[in-house]
């Protein structure tokens, strides 16, 4: 049994190398008689969830979860990715389904800024009552969804109907995004996911990406990223670690972890927001609840550098710009900025100069690449255990994409050219391993070595 052999190899590897259970999910495995029952059940559930996530349309307009959260683009979409899609991709359903032509999406804002229309404040006035939001990635959800205030999903933390949990999120997504018409009638315009499907979709989502937070500080190499980490952790200077503990999505103001939280950081008050510059109607997004309180959910930062644009409205394109936002007036006049200032001996919120902004961004770039390298090595090693050539190719191609991201993220910040050279070689070797029948293992093993060399140049 091919998948069974693959699972056996995966579990053997996971046991030896202490790879977290998410490994099983990432490689998309199914059952095997020799596995322990719990792991077997979880593996099956994740495999089922993966199939649903990428293939199930729920009898709707053709979209799947993967339409907006594609694996090949870090489970998010951006204008560059959107530009590669064919015209008949279901993402563009509002452009070719007459029933969804009005008040379902704004195709121009989708294509130019990657924005999706959401009726977070109700469906009674579709023409005027909506918000335009970017698509958050679904990586590291195990570290970010939980909160003492209840589960937080989506940009404002209230994305799911029912009990508001990640498990329930898919129901709201189907109603909002999968419908054939704006009537949104179950079993006419879509079907609602069953309880078993919700379990499986929750399992796949929780399995994606990191399963635990970093433990900062890391022993980084490179003068600028190292300084960036210091600023990030300095509660009198960068203050980033207060709301993004260990560059994750939980807050801690000194009294212990508050879990995943919501803040009003003033993003909606930014001047010259790209979508509004077009002259199109973009109503103010009031965030959490209806009517909203202006707060939005804290996203994890480890995955940030290769998942832009940034903030709930895709207002800022670059990671440097996103860090610079916290030095600006919109943030420092916001409730969150004012609270930080009140806690500061000098009475300032966040005040960083250009070099410091770039340093923090460099740090974020490096930790993103370290995570990509971790994923790449995991994928490459899993490919060595894959008995199906199709699965092997899928894993190698995923590793190649992660490596391309790593290269792009480092080059974009002018960082670690020596590591970039190793990553480029790792990418070339992974590509060769995909193409070649013979020596594929050799190329894969060499690619792993190159990844490790790159990592050694980023961190001790």
């Amino acid at each position, binding site marked *: 049994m091919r998948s069974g052999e693959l699972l056996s190899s995966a579990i053997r590897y996971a046991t030896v190398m202490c790879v977290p259970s998410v490994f099983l999910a990432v490689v998309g495995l199914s059952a095997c008689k020799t596995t322990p029952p719990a792991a077997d059940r979880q593996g099956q559930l994740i495999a089922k969830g993966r199939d649903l996530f990428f293939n199930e349309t729920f009898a709707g307009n053709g979209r799947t979860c993967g339409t907006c959260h594609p694996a090949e683009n870090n489970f998010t979409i951006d204008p560059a990715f959107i530009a590669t899609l064919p015209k008949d991709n279901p993402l563009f359903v509002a452009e070719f389904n007459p029933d969804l032509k009005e008040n379902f999406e704004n195709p121009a804002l989708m294509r130019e800024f990657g924005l999706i229309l959401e009726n977070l404040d109700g469906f009674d006035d579709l023409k005027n009552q909506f918000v335009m939001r970017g698509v958050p990635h679904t990586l590291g959800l195990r570290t970010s969804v939980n909160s003492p205030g*209840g589960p937080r999903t989506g940009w404002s933390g209230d994305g799911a109907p029912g009990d508001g949990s990640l498990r329930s999120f898919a129901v709201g997504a189907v109603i909002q995004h999968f419908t054939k018409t704006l009537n949104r009638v179950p079993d006419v315009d879509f079907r609602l996911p069953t309880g078993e499907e919700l379990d499986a979709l929750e399992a796949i989502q929780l399995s994606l990406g990191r399963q635990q937070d970093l433990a900062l500080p890391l022993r980084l190499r490179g003068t600028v990223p190292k300084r960036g980490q210091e600023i990030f952790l300095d509660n009198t200077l960068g203050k980033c670690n207060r709301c993004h503990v260990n560059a994750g999505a939980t807050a801690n103001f000194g009294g212990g972890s508050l879990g995943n939280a919501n803040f009003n950081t003033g993003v909606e008050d930014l001047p010259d927001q790209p979508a509004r510059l077009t002259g199109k109607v973009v109503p103010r997004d009031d965030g959490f609840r209806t009517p909203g309180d202006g707060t939005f959910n804290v996203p994890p930062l480890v995955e940030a550098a290769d998942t832009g644009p940034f903030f709930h409205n895709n207002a800022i394109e670059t990671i440097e710009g996103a860090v610079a936002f916290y030095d600006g007036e919109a943030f420092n006049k916001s409730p969150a900025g004012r609270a930080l200032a009140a806690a500061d001996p000098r009475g300032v919120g966040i005040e960083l100069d250009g070099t410091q902004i770039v340093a923090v961004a460099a740090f974020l770039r490096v930790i993103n690449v370290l995570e990509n390298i971790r994923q790449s090595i995991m994928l490459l090693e899993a490919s060595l255990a894959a008995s199906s050539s199709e699965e092997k190719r899928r894993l190698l191609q995923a590793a190649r994409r992660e490596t391309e991201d790593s290269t792009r993220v480092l080059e974009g910040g002018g960082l670690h050219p020596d590591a970039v050279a190793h990553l480029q070689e790792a990418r070339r070797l992974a590509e060769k391993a995909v193409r070649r029948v013979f020596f594929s293992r050799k190329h894969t093993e060499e690619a792993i070595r190159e990844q490790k060399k790159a990592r050694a140049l980023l961190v001790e």
Partner: protein
Amino acid sequence: MTVGKFVVGVVGMSALLWGGPLAASAHEMTERYIPVGQSPGLSGKYTVIGKIQTTNARDQTVAIVGTTRSWSAKVTEKTKIWLDRSKLRLTNLKGTFSDLRPGATVEVKPEGHLRGVFSGPAEWIKVQISASP
């Protein structure tokens, strides 16, 4: 400043965090389109499903008899009333207190996640419409 300001700041940040409701943060707007009894994680666990026994327009209350318990729901200005027409394969609509009629099957969610509380304000009420008026 130092200690005083720090305390103010921490309290301020805490208020930002805790000022909002602590119940799970559901997207109530898509809830409207979920048929009676199918709300994930809520139906039958945190909601009451039953038939309306009586209504009191003056007090804005509704008495509901469920299969296992009865409940007296208070309709406030915040309570959302939805007409679940999914059995008719029609879109669900917003309703009003006058749509709450004795004999109608309803699902009521109390404000917050209150287990074992059988009276109080309702967060939302879904009224199942099974035949055209």
